[in-house]
């Protein structure tokens, strides 16, 4: 994993560290990581900060802020971003939306408090990123 900026932001460091730790401890997540080729932006609306995660089939470059030409951009408040990380992964590697955390995330998606730009054309990528991101 690399950081694009000489001084990664706190958010970039946290997210990079989280993903690093996740793929170290899970073979399935490591496999997802090795196969993922996508640029994913995450913008935390209530702190006006974001990162771009450039997944390049086994490597990750973390940028401060949103870089151009992203495949997906997730926009949500801080607690929702944390909830995304707490989504359980169920059968066929799909996020679980029927438990308390999952229902909360689904509701926010429906209400527009969680936006995933580019989701419709990249559902598989969204699911893969969710799996890598998840601490469950």
């Amino acid at each position, binding site marked *: 994993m690399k950081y694009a900026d000489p001084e990664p*932001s*706190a*958010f970039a*460091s*946290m997210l990079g*560290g*989280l993903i690093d*730790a*996740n793929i170290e*401890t899970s073979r399935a997540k490591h496999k997802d990581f090795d196969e993922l080729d996508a640029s994913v932006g995450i913008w*935390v609306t*209530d*702190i006006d*900060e974001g990162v771009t995660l450039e997944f390049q089939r086994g490597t990750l470059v973390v940028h401060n802020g949103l870089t151009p030409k992203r495949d997906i951009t997730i926009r949500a408040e*801080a*607690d929702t*971003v*944390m*909830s995304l*990380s*707490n989504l359980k992964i169920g059968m066929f590697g799909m996020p679980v939306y029927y438990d308390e955390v999952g229902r909360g995330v689904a509701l926010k998606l429906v209400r527009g408090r969680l936006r995933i730009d580019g989701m419709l054309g990249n559902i598989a990528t969204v699911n893969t990123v969710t799996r890598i991101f998840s*601490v*469950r």
Partner: protein
Amino acid sequence: MAVKAFSSEWAEQFKDEVNASSVYKSAARGWKWTVGLVVEAEPDKKFPESRGVVMDLFDGTARGITVGSAADAQKCDFVITAPYTRWKQVATKELDATKGMLQGKLKLKGDLPTIVRYTKASQEMTECTTRVPVEWPDEN
């Protein structure tokens, strides 16, 4: 009656609040690590020496919360460090702890997946802090 910020009396009341919280008890099930809060000195805010809060938390219970040196807190499994002013902002709900960590206003050391898994527990702990009436040194 208000207690002095980051005093032994404060620690005792904080521990009582945590143990009275059913939300915390449920959200922190399975937690088995110590947490240290390092409150960095700000002499111009009448907080001349850094202090450490050591929290012995286990499976939804606060077994002990004590105030000592920053060095003691730094030996914990998880360590959150911030200046006095930031901790006051957290305790008075001016700063959300999760946002604070994402912004680097509160510096976190420890296993990130674990801390993320227990976000709800840490949010409730922050709520418990806000329930303790406090005398702030820079307000006297």
